[in-house]
C-alpha cells in the first residue's frame, strides 16, 4: 500500500473544513498514515477470514 501523500491529505482535510498549521499537519499526517495502515490490516484480515471460511 503506497503512503498517503501530503497533497491528498490536504485535500481530505479541506473537504472536512479542517485547517492545521505546519507542525500540526505533520503530526496529523503521521497519524493518518498509520490509520491507512489499519485499513490495510483490516482488509487483509477479512480476506484471510474469507479464505478460511470457504
Amino acid at each position, binding site marked *: 500500500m503506497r503512503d498517503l501523500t501530503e497533497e491528498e491529505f490536504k485535500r481530505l482535510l479541506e473537504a*472536512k473544513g479542517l*485547517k492545521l498549521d505546519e507542525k500540526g499537519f505533520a*503530526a496529523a499526517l503521521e*497519524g493518518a498514515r498509520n490509520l*491507512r495502515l489499519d485499513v490495510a490490516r483490516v482488509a487483509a484480515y477479512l480476506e484471510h477470514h474469507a479464505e478460511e471460511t470457504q
Partner: protein
Amino acid sequence: MSSAADLSLFDASAALRSGAFTSRALVEAVLQRIKERERLHAFTHVAADALAQADAADARLARGEDPGRLCGLPIAVKDLIDVQGQPATSGSRVLAGRIAERDADAVARLRAQGAVLIGKLATYEFAMVGPDMNLPDPPARNPWNLAHITGGSSSGAAAAVAGGLVRLAIGTDTGGSIRSPAAYCGCVGLKPSYERVSRDGAFPLSPSLDHTGPLAATVAEAALALDAMTPDNEEWQPASALIGQSIEGLRIGFARSWFADDPKASPALIRAMDEAAATFSMLGARVSLTDLPDYQPYEAAASIILHAEALAEHVALIAKNQSAYGRPTLQCLAFGAVISDEDLAMARRAVKPLTEAMTSAMADVDVILTATTLTPALPFSAFDGEKAVWTPMRTIAFNLTGQPALSLPCGFENGLPLGAQLVAAIGAEDVLCRVGHAFEQATDHAVQRPLF
C-alpha cells in the same frame, strides 16, 4: 479511620440509615478532602448545591423513604456526562460556559436513588486524547506520583477515586478510558456490556464503541454503581449478585501471551500478572493458559471506526469554532479524514468475525485474565503538548466485541500501580465481579492508598 470520606459506600450507607451520621456530615468530609487534595486537579467543578442535595437525602431517610443504597452518598461524574445545572464542557474551550439542562440518563438514575452529585471530573478533551497542558482545566495528576499522568480519558475520575476524594465516580470508555486510568491510578474500573448503561447525555466520541460505567475503590462498590445505572428489566443479571461466592472450580483463561509477548510489556507487569494467575489458582479456580486471537485486527478495526465516527460527531463544531480545539485533539480528529465510507463499512463488517473469534477463544473458560495496560503511567515529561502519545494497552478489543471488562489493581512498579483485566461474556458482569472481588479479598492491592 481518619475521615468519613474513607468509608466504603456500604459502611457509609449503613451509617446513614442507623443515624450514626448524616449525609450532610459525609458530604462535608468529602468536600474537605477535595479541598485538601486540590493538587490532584481531579475536580473541574464542585456542586454549589452539594450540601442541599445531602440535606434532601437526609430528609428522605428521616421520612422513612429508601430510594436505594446510594441515597445520601456522594458520587462524582466525568465532565463528558451531563449533570443538570452543572458545567458540561467535555474538557474543551469549544463548549466553554455550557451548563447541562438535564441529567444524562445514567445520572438521572443515580439522582432518583438519592445520590449526591458532588461535582464534575477532569476528562481528556472530548475523551479524545491527552494530557494537554494548554487547556483551561489542568490535567489530573496521578495520586501515586504527581509527576505522572493518570491516563484517560476518565482522568479525573481515576485520580479522585484512587486519591481518596470519593469512593465512586462515573466515567466513559470508548477504547479503554475507564480501565486504563483505573489501572494507572490503582482503582477499579468496570466497562459494562455494550448498551447495558445508557449513553444518552454523554458527549459521543464513537457511538459504536462508547460505554458508560463506574470507577470505584473496590469491585463491590463498582458493582453497586453499575446495578444502580442499569435499567430495571430482566435483560441484565445484577453485577453484585454473586459477590462473596467462592470461585472454586471457575475456569479462568490466562491470556498471558496476549500481553507478555509484546516487547513493550514491562517485566514487573508480567511478574504481577503471573502472581495474579497464581492467586486465582490458590483460590481454587481452574487456571489455564489461553490463546486469544491476534490483537492487531481488533485495534485496527476499532481505530478506523473510532476516528471516522469521532470526526463525524465534530464536523459541525469544527466548522463553527475550530480555533477553540486543543492541538492534539484537532490532530487526532483530522486522522478520520482519511477514512472513506467504504473503509468504515469494511471495518464494521469485520466486527462480526472478530467477535465470533473472541467468543470461540473463550468457549472453554468463564473469565479471561489479561493485562489492562502494559506499563505503569508515563511521566508528564513524555508529552510535549503538540503530538499525541499512545500508551500500550489491551482494552479496545472489548469495546469492539461489547464484552464487559474489569480492571483492578494487581501490583506496583517503581511506586506506580499496575492493572489486571478480567473479561467475561456479554451480560456476565456478575461472574466478572465475583472473580474480581475474590481476588481483591485475597490480596492487599485494593487497600493500598497513596500518602498525602
